[in-house]
């Protein structure tokens, strides 16, 4: 039966400590009020355990539980889902501390604690969380050991370590071979997945790209099949912004009704297959090299030639996108698209409009107009800076073009597109990234948020949409040297974007490589990767894999069992004389006269002799020999005597007496 006594004070405090440590990372994931609810309950119960307060009654516990439900419902609007469910679990576990009255309660508590541990990984799966998994499991298993048998903390931790190490090979085998079913099974709640960091958005206003450049977080990692494209082709296409509302460029919902883009190859077009791992963005566009044509997952290509996934990208995603440079994008422009690409607000920015009309009156061809605009940026004193002077709300383009003359890429792209539209040339703003750096360790390229960029595209007859990057006119180094090489003052950039080459930079790059490997091999291990691995191992079909798994697990468990058995083996006494004496005692024990552990040889022999006179003579002789061999004041180096004793002991076989006396144990 289970132990009848409730968990002791020390055990309760240890369980509380386990809860605190396992729940700690949730501090970063859950709203503050949840922690504020759980922490006082935990502190209360820890005090109650220490000071031996009586446990709360059933009514109070019920009220607290109901209050917990109500609080979570009020705070999140529901009880299921990632954040709400985890919050509820945490609060209920804290309340469970009130109810640790029996062994079974403690076991239920610990099982639910395992569950809480698992929920941590819904929020983050970084390497730090992997270390946390090890620590959490170690503590929980130690708590299990502590509850099942009364031991010191040190023994419990040692036992836990032993169990975990012995279980590790089996777990690794299960991880690799256990059949992975493609999920999701019941669908993901709307707040699932890790929180996305900042990234491109579907609207661009003066300053928005500059804000993004202040983050050196990784936007995507790319692997090229062969060589990397030259710097001038390292444009990564993100959302295309068609509509200007007087203040910012954005994507209007009506965008979806435009016909999809078409890409055709030309004479010198080159195809680039790129293996991209995109960080979570919470939008649905799949960033790819300019201009993407194919992808190895389900996606649609919008009117702006950007790839869109079916759902928002909530977790890190990997895909293979093939892009073409030097092709023709939308050789024939549909009328709706053309009208859309010429749309400007009815009023605002008069000076810019005048400038464009002047170019039109001069009867310049569209290419000449483009050159005129670029020439203006190149020859007049325009500056490229992360922190330009602010522009007014309603005449932003005018202020930038004629007054402040300083800005970041979004200013230039936006103003240029406005001028083109005012001059009657269909134009649009494209946002995305420009550049990227090769990783120090590993064969991939890193594109960061600080590489975010905005440029323009104009539609020219016979050439389709042509990329025009006004930033290149102002800061040509931007293309070749990336953002760190193009700004006069580097210090405003985040650390990793400065590409300094220092030790800390290298350390960060190595860490990035470790993380990339972690992500690529461990976190991405799903049905597809498992298929590849199994094929390589020669375990193609399901039956084969399952057979290998079963055989492997059984084999490893047998090994573990043999190891434990070897550890538990009987320790033989090193001295053969003592072993022979133990054999004598064993045989006498089987005959009904076991030796008491505090009984010396002579006393033992006398006792047996008085009960069994027939054995007295032989036993007496043996005991005398043994005492002489073992307890002589001078060590007896006569091996002959020892061998004689051993052989005589081997021949000593006392027979059990027929008439066994009753109550031989009780003294009459």
């Amino acid at each position, binding site marked *: 039966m289970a132990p*009848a006594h409730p968990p002791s004070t020390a055990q309760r405090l240890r369980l509380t400590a386990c809860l605190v440590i396992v729940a700690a990372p949730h501090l970063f994931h859950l709203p503050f009020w949840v922690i504020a609810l759980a922490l006082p309950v935990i502190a209360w119960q820890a005090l109650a355990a220490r000071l031996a307060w009586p446990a709360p009654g059933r009514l109070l516990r019920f009220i607290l539980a109901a209050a917990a439900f109500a609080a979570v419902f009020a705070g999140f609007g529901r009880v299921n889902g990632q954040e709400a469910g985890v919050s509820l679990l945490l609060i209920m576990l804290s309340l469970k501390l009130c109810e640790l009255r029996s062994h079974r309660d403690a076991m239920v508590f610990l*099982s639910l604690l395992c569950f809480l541990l*698992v929920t941590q*990984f819904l929020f983050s*799966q970084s390497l730090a969380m992997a270390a946390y998994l090890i620590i959490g499991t170690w503590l929980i298993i130690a708590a299990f050991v502590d509850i099942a048998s009364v031991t010191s903390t040190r023994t419990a931790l040692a036992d836990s370590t032993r*169990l975990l190490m012995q*279980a590790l090979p089996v777990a690794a085998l299960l*991880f690799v071979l256990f059949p992975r079913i493609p999920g999701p099974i019941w669908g993901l709640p709307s707040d699932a997945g890790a929180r996305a960091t900042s990234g491109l958005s579907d609207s661009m206003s003066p300053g928005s790209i500059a804000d993004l450049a202040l983050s050196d977080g990784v936007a995507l990692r790319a692997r090229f099949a062969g060589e990397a494209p030259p710097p001038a082709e390292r444009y990564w296409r993100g959302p295309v912004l068609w509509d200007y509302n007087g203040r910012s460029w954005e994507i209007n919902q009506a965008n979806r009704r435009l016909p999809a883009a078409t890409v055709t190859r030309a004479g010198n077009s080159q195809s680039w297959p790129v293996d991209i791992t995109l960080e979570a963005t919470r939008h649905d566009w799949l960033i790819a090299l300019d201009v993407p044509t194919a992808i190895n997952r389900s996606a649609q290509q919008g009117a702006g030639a950007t790839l869109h996934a079916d759902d928002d990208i909530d977790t890190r995603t990997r895909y293979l996108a093939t892009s073409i440079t030097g092709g023709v994008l939308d050789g024939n422009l549909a009328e709706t698209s053309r009208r859309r690409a010429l749309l400007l607000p009815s009023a605002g920015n008069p000076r810019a409009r005048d400038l464009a009309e002047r170019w039109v009156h001069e009867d310049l061809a569209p290419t000449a107009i483009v050159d005129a605009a670029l020439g203006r940026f190149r020859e007049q004193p325009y500056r490229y800076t992360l922190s330009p002077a602010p522009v007014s709300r309603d005449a932003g383009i005018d202020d930038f073009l004629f007054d402040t003359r300083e800005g970041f890429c979004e200013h230039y792209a936006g103003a240029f597109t406005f001028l083109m539209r005012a001059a009657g040339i269909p134009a649009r703003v494209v946002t995305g990234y420009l550049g990227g750096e090769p990783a120090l360790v590993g064969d991939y390229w890193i594109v960061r948020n600080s590489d975010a960029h905005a440029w323009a595209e104009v539609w020219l007859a016979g050439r389709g949409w042509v990329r025009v990057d006004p930033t290149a006119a102002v800061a040509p180094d931007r293309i070749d040297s990336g953002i760190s090489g193009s700004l006069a003052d580097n210090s405003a950039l985040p650390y990793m974007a400065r590409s300094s080459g220092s030790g800390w930079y290298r350390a960060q790059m190595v860490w990035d490589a470790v993380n990339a490997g972690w992500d690529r091999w461990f976190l991405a291990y799903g049905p597809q990767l498992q298929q590849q691995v199994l094929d390589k191992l020669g375990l193609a079909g399901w039956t084969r894999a399952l057979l290998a798994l079963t055989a492997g697990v059984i084999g490893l468990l047998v090994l573990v069992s043999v190891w434990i058995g070897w550890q538990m*083996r009987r320790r033989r006494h090193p001295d053969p004389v003592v072993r022979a004496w133990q054999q004598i005692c064993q045989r006498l024990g089987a005959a009904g006269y076991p030796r008491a552990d505090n009984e010396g040889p002579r006393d033992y022999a006398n006792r047996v002799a008085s009960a069994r006179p027939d054995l007295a003579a032989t036993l007496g002789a043996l005991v005398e020999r043994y005492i002489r061999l073992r307890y002589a004041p001078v060590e007896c180096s006569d091996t002959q005597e020892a061998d004689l004793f051993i052989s005589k002991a081997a021949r000593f076989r006392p027979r059990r007496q027929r008439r066994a006396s009753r109550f031989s144990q*009780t003294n009459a």
Partner: protein
Amino acid sequence: MGRALRSRLANARQQFIRRRSPATRVPLAISRRRLYILPTGSGGLFALLLVIMLLGATNYSNSLAFALTFWLASVALVSMHHAHRNLLGLSIRTVEAEPVFAGQAARFTLTLAHDAGRQRRAVRVSSDKTQRAEAVDVSANVPVQVAVSIAAPVRGVMACPRLRIESLYPIGLFRSWSWLTPRAEVLVYPAPAGRERLPEPAGSDDAREALRQRGREDFIGQRSYIRGDSPRDIDWKASARSDALLVREYEQPQSNQLWLDYERLGTLDHEARLCQLVLWVMRAERAGQAYGLALADTRLPPAIGSAHYRACLRALALA
């Protein structure tokens, strides 16, 4: 009809279990054949939770969740082997039990020992009827004594019932246990009961009268002081005259032939007579009165002292 069937099934089950674990002489060890292992209730709950975690990990395609689930499952499987090995080879070296009176609880004291390499942990010994049991750890070559209390309602010889040795080591998800029946017995004396007064010793009432009249018993001489003698018996005058402390010695009371006779309790039935006799024996012993016991087939001459006391009680228990 149903009741008879159920009792027959219960009997058959008891017979089956008794055949599987017959009473064995000590020392007796737990062998592989006699060792069983099954998941506990908590183990079942744990398994259910693991299945839920597995489904969750599949749903969210979460590698760390898979890793945790598989690791916990492996730990459970490995713990099964630890649980098995924990009890395998543990032996009961001796069983002792002091005699008790009927209605009390008999304590069987077992000595557990083993000579394996590692300590055996959280071992519990209980019987069918006792539920509460304390856990002990048994180190190699260090015997540990464990007591099991069994109710002894009937007088006579009670055999040690089937004992259950179990352990929840290491993590309480699996329980390993073994049924052992060591061949040991405890003597149960009849419960003392009865309303008859202790009979007078047979023989000279006159001698007793004379003694009472004289007020003190006959002084017959002195002997040297032995540690434990009452200080009141010390003869100070005589001691002052000699070198050592001297103690007065009195005549032993004679003709106190108290016989406790089975036949004299004609009105009671057999068991009641035995109970009454036990009560008399206890009273006589307490009063310091030498007593003899006369039963149908046993006759113990009058004496006093713990050895005689126990012999009388044993005779009554086995009568």
